[in-house]
């Protein structure tokens, strides 16, 4: 497997709409739960081991499913498994606000990736749902067309579950960016563990994929109101 597509897809400057999302960090800052490097570390670890694990497992499962021979029949791409993954991820995302965000990010990501790796597979995944596929399904599809294996996909997805909020902390709290890098580096071991667990789970049945949620992230996502003054989309 070439590392270059992995690095491209894991680059936070890939124009997939992520820069405007804090992964719940803005709400945590507003509630006074995150205020320095130490509390950021706790937030990121919680995110990584909950929704991060679920995201990484679904991304790896989607990559596995979509790279192991795609059937393109007369009716086009047969996406039954991908549809099942999307449904199962929906069931693991109880907050309507988070579902909407996840589908928007999936939609955005596919548009960015289609420019680099045009594929009938991405078109098919884009049409899984009128609002777009969930972000991990889109990321798995992107990984499949870019030639990533499920392990690399899982690592990139697990890492992405904390890099976005970490960069948001730099902006929202004015934390020293070097301190934020130190926090991310200190989590490298846990990212690897989560990625390995997710990649292993991805080989099992779809319905048995991890279903770890972070209730406080879901609740705070629901508390955000459209007319509230805020800076991040999520």
């Amino acid at each position: 497997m070439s590392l270059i597509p992995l690095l491209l897809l894991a680059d936070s400057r890939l124009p997939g709409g992520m820069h405007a999302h804090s992964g719940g960090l803005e709400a945590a800052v507003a509630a006074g739960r995150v205020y320095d490097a130490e509390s950021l570390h706790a937030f990121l670890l919680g995110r990584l081991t909950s929704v991060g694990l679920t995201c990484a497992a679904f991304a790896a499962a989607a990559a596995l499913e979509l790279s192991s021979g795609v059937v393109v029949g007369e009716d086009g791409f047969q996406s039954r498994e991908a549809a099942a993954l999307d449904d199962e991820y929906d069931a693991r995302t109880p907050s309507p606000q988070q579902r909407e965000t996840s589908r928007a990010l999936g939609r955005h990501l596919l548009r960015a990736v289609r420019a680099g790796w045009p594929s009938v597979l991405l078109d098919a995944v884009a049409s899984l749902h009128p609002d777009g596929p969930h972000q991990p399904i889109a990321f798995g599809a992107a990984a499949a067309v870019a030639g990533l294996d499920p392990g690399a996909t899982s690592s990139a997805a697990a890492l992405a579950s904390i890099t976005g909020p970490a960069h948001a902390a730099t902006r929202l709290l004015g934390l020293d960016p070097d301190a934020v890098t130190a926090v991310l580096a200190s989590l490298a071991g846990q990212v690897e563990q989560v990625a390995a667990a997710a990649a292993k789970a991805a080989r099992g049945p779809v319905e048995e994929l991890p279903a770890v949620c972070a209730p406080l992230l879901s609740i705070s996502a629901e508390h955000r109101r459209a007319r509230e003054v805020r800076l991040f989309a999520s």
Partner: protein
Amino acid sequence: MPREVPQGAHQNRGTVRVGVGGPVGAGKTTLIAGLCSALRAELSLAVVLNDPDLQTDTDLLLRHGALEPDRIAAVWTGCAPQAAIRDDLRANADAAAALEARFAPDLLLIESGGTDLGATFSRGLTDRAVFVLDVAAGDRTAHKAGPGVTNADLLVVNKTDLAGAVHADLDVLRRGAAARRGEAPTVFVSLAEHPGAPAVADWVRKLLAERRLTAATAIGAAAGSTTGPGGEAAGS
């Protein structure tokens, strides 16, 4: 001779997209409210707001009866207004495409969050860009060569009524704009005195007339051949 500016890469066919950028407080939202009031009788309009203080910004647009609430979309940029109109335009493109799919407006205005002079709109997002400066911010702003000022298709210098009060010399601004922008147009306005911004409204009318002419020519040249819609259609 006006600069040749290609149509934006988004390829939406019916709607002309105009970005409105500029520093905080220059009058971007006020200009958009004024344009909507001035043009609503003759054009179908829609607006995308970035980093909105929704209460204030939306109320400003609604108060003048300029726009129905459904025609205003909000995009949050995560403290990075320039990224949202240039480096990662995805959320704005999505919001614009959704409004176009629903209303097929003649004109879609995309207001950036307040930026410095370096902000430019990607051609992947808008057809044309307007940059708004505030006279009260000083008379050297136009001369400071940010890409926002240099590359904008129209530079709007607002609050000319305050020039005396802040000891700003409009001639300095005029010379600065000419030095940085060459033949590209600059207009001086006071939105407080003339909320409809007639000079800007006329620029928009001319832009739409050009687009209609181009479209008519293209249809004539195509002589029956059809192409599918490109770009970022909503929900695809």
